């Protein structure tokens, strides 16, 4: 092979020399060089056949159903070398429901225009049998059927997305860009509501349009760069209200239209060759108006005192950062981000039942994120990294409801105080401010020429202002507001003992401690019971990953990886009406194992083959124990195990220099004992498909095992 290359080298030199003498004709004759420096295009066409449904695995790829498909793809890139004009066309999966294509025309460094279309299907992996009538409309009626005696309904959605991009350079340093994206989302989604007695099945009719428009001007100077622009986004829903007749009419609000406008300015400046500063200023106004919902609702169902409201959010963003290579060895970075989201929705009551009435619940947030990082290169193979991070979040308190102040706890301790100004936020304690301080450190060392390793740690501590007690029975510190100590350690290793072998290993371990989340034994309820604090107590996450790549020969390569991840949480829950058994501890865990093996290579000059194996197993554990009643300690929910396996084999035979045939054989397997859509029969002797209660009898079912084989053959022509 090398001998052939050496010969080619000489031919190339000769051809260039000939081109100099005889012009382009001689140059064009050097097909090998032209082939290497000219953008390649290809078109391919073929067919595929699949022998079974892939209800779960095919939810996004347009290949959920068994049967045949036409495969049409293209990747065409044409460049005019004299002018720098590019014309491209890319088509992917044209014969499938997940089809997409884009085309573009540009003159490099001058202007460009492109258009893209893509469809993202989203299938519901379960089958629905229901007596519901009016599916697809906004007026639906539940008809009672025996489970399984209704009509089968296939639920699916799709997004059709259209993107138009334009850009124009006005000089070497000034560019105007425009992006417009419109997405039509249509379909049917599994839905439902509370009927007043039990959950009721419904189908949400999806028919909405999302539009985004971004127009910005970019200036790129030697030291100064600026980008300023306008970003607008609009959401329009054709359906504002779903009426579900059970048979009495229930009115379910659907997502309202909304829109937002943003003006922004980004900047960067090179203070010196080694120091760079960046900044951003942005202001966004988002509004939403509920008039279409009010129009759709029967007038009699709306309180006469409520005439609608325009909700309004105003967000201000700012960022300022400096990074500098102080010396060849030391670099520093400081950065501050500010985000202030003011909910300026008027505070009004929107009904008069119940008493006190429901009121609008605007939430405002102010966040500060600051970091200081340092990198110090001890020597060529040893680097130290350190960072300090401060995150502050401030929340507005819920509005006053002086008509219904909460009862004072009798012996609250810790950092709890009674929120005497709020009761509209039912049930959940509240914290106006959180502060989290994090320290990170990392050492990266080249141990040998072929061995690099790094060891990292991080410790963070989150606390905040006093909790506002809003309900005398709720002692939870919400997950995102609770005090938390978090420790992380990480180890990475990269070993390349030779040109042909490389190995990567990674081990991460993180541990969260929420301390005494809640008030165990600190509070006595009005009935005299001592209550336990509930919510999350601690959590952990582990990751082990090993990757290896082996270049078996110039023509063969093997890659393999394995990962195991574990995340666990311990949380407590309270059960008021369960006598001596009010407290349960849940030990939750998600454990995943993933394996990937790939091999590819050439068996001859014309034949390239590959094989890939992807296996994944995830186990969800929902162990519960009653911490007060030792006799009933084991109250576990069943684990949920999901397994997927994909084995794919492919072979590409080069028919000639420009054309090839590729064959793909794929074996897909999916298995799950997920009980989400199952329930026990009344005798507790067998699992049955989930069925809604007595008012409709809708049944949702799925298979626990799916296996599908597919074969695809396609012809590809390159030019």
């Amino acid at each position, binding site marked *: 092979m090398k001998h052939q290359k050496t010969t080619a080298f000489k031919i190339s030199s000769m051809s260039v020399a000939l081109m100099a003498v005889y012009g382009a004709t001689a140059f064009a004759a050097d097909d090998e060089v032209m082939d290497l420096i000219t*953008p390649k295009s290809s078109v391919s066409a073929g067919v595929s056949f699949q022998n079974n449904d892939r209800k779960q695995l095919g939810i996004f790829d347009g290949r959920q159903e068994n049967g045949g498909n036409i495969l049409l793809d293209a990747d065409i890139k044409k460049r005019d070398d004299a002018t720098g004009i590019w014309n491209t066309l890319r088509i992917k999966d044209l014969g499938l429901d997940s089809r997409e294509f884009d085309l573009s025309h540009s003159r490099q460094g001058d202007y460009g225009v492109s258009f893209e279309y893509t469809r993202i299907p989203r299938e519901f992996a379960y089958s629905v049998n229901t007596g519901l009538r009016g599916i697809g409309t906004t007026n639906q009626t539940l008809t009672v059927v025996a489970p399984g005696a209704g009509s089968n309904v296939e639920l699916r959605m799709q997004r059709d997305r259209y993107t138009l991009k334009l850009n124009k350079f006005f000089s070497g340093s000034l560019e105007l860009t425009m992006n417009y994206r419109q997405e039509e989302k249509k379909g049917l989604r599994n839905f439902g509501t*509370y009927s007043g007695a039990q959950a009721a099945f419904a189908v949400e009719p999806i028919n909405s349009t*999302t539009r985004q428009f971004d127009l910005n001007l970019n200036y790129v100077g030697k030291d100064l760069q600026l980008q300023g622009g306008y970003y607008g986004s609009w959401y329009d829903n054709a359906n504002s209200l779903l009426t579900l007749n059970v048979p009495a009419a229930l*009115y379910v609000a659907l997502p309202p239209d909304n829109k937002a406008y943003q003006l922004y300015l980004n900047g960067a400046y090179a203070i010196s060759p080694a120091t760079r500063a960046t900044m951003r200023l942005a202001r966004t106004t988002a509004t939403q108006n509920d008039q279409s919902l009010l129009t759709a609702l029967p007038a009699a169902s709306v309180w006469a005192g409520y005439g609608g409201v325009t909700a309004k959010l105003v967000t201000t963003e700012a960022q300022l950062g400096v990074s500098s290579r102080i010396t060849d060895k030391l670099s520093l970075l400081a950065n501050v981000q500010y985000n202030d989201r003011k909910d300026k929705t008027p505070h009004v009551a929107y009904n008069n039942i119940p008493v006190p009435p429901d009121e609008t619940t605007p939430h405002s947030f102010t966040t500060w994120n600051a970091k200081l990082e340092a990198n110090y290169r001890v020597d060529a193979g040893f680097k130290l990294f350190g960072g300090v991070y401060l995150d502050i979040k401030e929340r507005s308190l819920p509005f006053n409801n002086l008509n219904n102040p909460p009862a004072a706890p009798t012996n609250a301790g810790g950092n709890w105080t009674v929120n005497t100004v709020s009761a509209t936020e039912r049930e959940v304690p509240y914290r106006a401010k959180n502060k989290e301080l994090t320290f990170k450190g990392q050492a990266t060392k080249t141990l040998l020429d072929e061995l690099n390793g790094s060891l990292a740690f991080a410790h963070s501590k989150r606390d905040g202002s006093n909790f506002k007690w809003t309900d005398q029975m709720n002692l939870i510190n919400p997950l995102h507001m609770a005090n938390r100590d978090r420790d992380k350690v990480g180890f990475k290793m990269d070993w390349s003992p030779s040109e042909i072998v490389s190995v990567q290993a990674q081990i991460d371990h993180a541990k969260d401690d929420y301390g005494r989340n809640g008030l165990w034994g600190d509070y006595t309820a009005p009935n005299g019971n001592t209550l336990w604090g509930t919510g999350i107590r601690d959590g952990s996450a582990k990751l082990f990953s090993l990757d290896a790549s082996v270049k078996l*020969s110039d023509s063969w390569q093997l890659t393999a990886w394995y990962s195991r991840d574990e995340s666990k949480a311990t949380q407590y829950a309270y059960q008021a009406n369960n006598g001596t058994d009010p407290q349960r501890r849940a030990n939750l865990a998600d454990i995943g194992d993933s394996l990937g093996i790939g091999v590819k290579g050439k068996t001859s000059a014309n034949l390239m083959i590959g094989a890939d194996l992807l296996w994944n197993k995830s186990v969800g554990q929902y162990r519960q124990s009653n911490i007060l009643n030792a006799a009933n300690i084991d109250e576990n929910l069943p684990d949920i195990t999901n397994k997927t396996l994909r084995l794919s084999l492919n072979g590409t*035979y080069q028919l000639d220099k420009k054309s090839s045939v590729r064959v793909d054989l794929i074996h897909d397997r999916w298995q799950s004992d997920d009980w989400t859509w199952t329930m026990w029969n009344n005798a507790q002797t067998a699992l049955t498909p989930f069925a809604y209660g007595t008012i409709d009898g809708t049944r949702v079912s799925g298979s626990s095992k799916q296996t599908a084989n597919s074969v695809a053959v396609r012809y590809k022509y390159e030019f």
Partner: protein
Amino acid sequence: MKQWQKILAVVAASAGLGLLATATPALAAADAPKRNLAADPAAKDLILKGDAKCTGCHDEADEPTGAGTMLELNPGVLAIGKTKHGTRADSRTPTCTDCHGESDKHRLHKGSDKPPVVDRSFRKGTKTSAGARSDVCTTCHKGGSKMFWAMSTHAAQDVTCSNCHQVHSGKDKVRDKVSQASVCYTCHKEQRTMMSKPSRHPVQEGKMSCSDCHSPHGSPGQKQLARATVNETCYTCHMEKRGPFLNNHQPVSEDCGICHNPHGTTAPNLLKSRPPFLCQECHEGGNHPSSSSPGGLPIATAAGFAPSGRGQIASVGRGCVNCHTNVHGSNNPINNGTSGDRFLR
């Protein structure tokens, strides 16, 4: 060989039989004559202005660059001609030495032994510092979406442009929606495992890519996100959740990531935990925890969970959302006490 025979050969190879036919090109290469490394003084530019000093040696007979394998990049250097960096009509296009330096020691090396490396090398194990490698690219790519590169986590961790981008390739994997994630997974192993969980975004199918949500070149907002916050990023596709509503659900307004993990979960709908456990991280009121009320704790028995009835409705089906269907917020002003405030309608 006739056409049908060729096709049959492909099928046979796909089934694994082709493994038996492994060629041994490495052995063949060992027998090949050594190549004269001195540049051809008569060489002319092949692609870029002044590239002859490099392409005189790095021509179609060149070895792969080391960034990929023989299967993908052979010969690697000339492939830059297929890219935008190889578009000579664009006056901004650099030439070899703009990126790699004049590299006189490398260029003027005589003999058949291995020459000194170029002034700025981008190969694995290079002695050129990460900062110097990125500086090469940011000399030109310093505006627009690259403006915040110096502030990025990638830059702080010595990830350079060439760690992700294949500059000498007609097909840069990280700029292809289908193959991009595999590049990101080189470092982001946790995300690789999560993306294979039962509930996930359509990244495997190539309908989304990491850069739909993240700005790998740095951003002025959190977590190198495409927009300033988690919520604003999510709203680009899930704008129906934006509101603002008459009745907002506090964590929804604060951060979608409180309940969802966008990289993948075992629980449906990218939820970090299954209802009711997820909901019970905040909600523990005086009514719902009752075993006899809807939405109570998942009732455990020796056999598993309870028979049909109201007690288990928060554990199966859509969980708590069976009833609290508008959990992302509601605009419902119905005057009956069960409207939007509890997200039932």
